[in-house]
């Protein structure tokens, strides 16, 4: 295994510049991460974890779409209960709504905490090349890229640096980061 960054400090998911102060003055934060997982913190995530995170996100998307559909049907029922019919949504419309919703979901997740719910479940975080949090613009472009070309994710299985096509294009990295709080941005931005 290569030496992971953040090995000594399991919290941050990215490289934080060494502080030129005695260690006693800046105590190392206690880690709630299990010992067996600490060596991996901050290291680039592999394809399996990323695909699983994407699958969880897809489930979230499907549930959100279903919720939207039910809400839409309920509104229609409340508006005209006597002539209520189960609304029909064609496939292309559903795909478009799903794509927009998924893009927004990914953008918000990456721009705020660096991860979506799926990434949270799998303990992953999307950060910039220097470990900083992605800005809204880059998050949006990356989200759009992922929605348009999801197969690009599988390039991370082949890439020597575990990067997907989206990572290569947007200069982003997906790392293992089990820390609950987003401490990756202390040195970024």
């Amino acid at each position, binding site marked *: *295994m*290569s*030496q*992971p*960054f*953040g090995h000594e400090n399991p919290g941050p998911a*990215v*490289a934080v*510049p060494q502080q030129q102060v005695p260690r*006693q003055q800046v*105590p*190392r934060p*206690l*880690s*709630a*991460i*299990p*010992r*067996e*997982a600490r060596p*991996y913190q*901050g*290291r*680039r*995530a*592999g*394809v*399996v*974890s990323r695909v*699983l995170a994407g699958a969880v996100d897809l489930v979230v998307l499907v549930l959100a779409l279903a919720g939207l559909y039910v809400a839409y049907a309920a509104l229609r029922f409340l508006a005209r209960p006597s002539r209520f019919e189960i609304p029909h949504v064609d496939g292309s419309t559903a795909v478009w709504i799903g794509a927009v919703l998924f893009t927004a979901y990914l953008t918000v997740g990456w721009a705020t905490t660096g991860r979506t719910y799926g990434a949270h*479940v*799998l*303990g992953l975080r999307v950060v*910039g*090349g*220097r*470990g900083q949090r992605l800005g809204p613009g880059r998050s949006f472009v990356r989200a759009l890229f992922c929605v348009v070309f999801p197969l690009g994710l599988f390039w991370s*299985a*082949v*890439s*020597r*640096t*575990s*990067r997907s096509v989206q990572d*290569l294009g947007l*200069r982003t*990295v997906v*790392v*293992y980061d*089990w820390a609950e709080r987003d401490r990756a941005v202390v040195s970024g931005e």
Partner: protein
Amino acid sequence: MVSQAEMRDVGTALVAAAGSAVRTAGRRGRRAAGLFVEQVGFVLGPSARRGVRSLADAVLGQLDLTDLVRRHVDLNAVVATVDLDAVARRIDVDAVVDRVDVGALVDRLDLPTLARQVIEAVDLPEIIRQSSGAMASETVQGLRLHSIGADERVKQVVDRVLLRGRDGPVGGAPKPGEVGS
């Protein structure tokens, strides 16, 4: 004519008388000498004592007694004869502790580091997890660990297929400032 036996009796009597006289004189002499010394001491005692004290001070002033003791006295042997336990029992530890500035002592300790080391040694986070962890968090933890293991295995297979070295495994750390590839 005095017989030989009579002469012997007279001699014996004379010797006895002489011994008695000498003993008496000795007793009287000693009594007289003691009385004399007593009288002289009464008269000359204070000045003589002062003289002796001055002489002793002068002599001791020329000597380094500490050095003499160090060189000629086996202090370990002396100390070995001392009942240190008895001495220790006589020490009022509470009084000693009362004189200690505990606050200053505590200030000298790096308590955060000590606490951190203790917490890490007993793995307090793991104890908290085990005592309060829900089934869901255990499941998530297991899922994460298994996915990391799967990532490693996939990477090994890919590296083997592509005849790549293991210098770029899963989780290869991006260095500060590294972008793209």
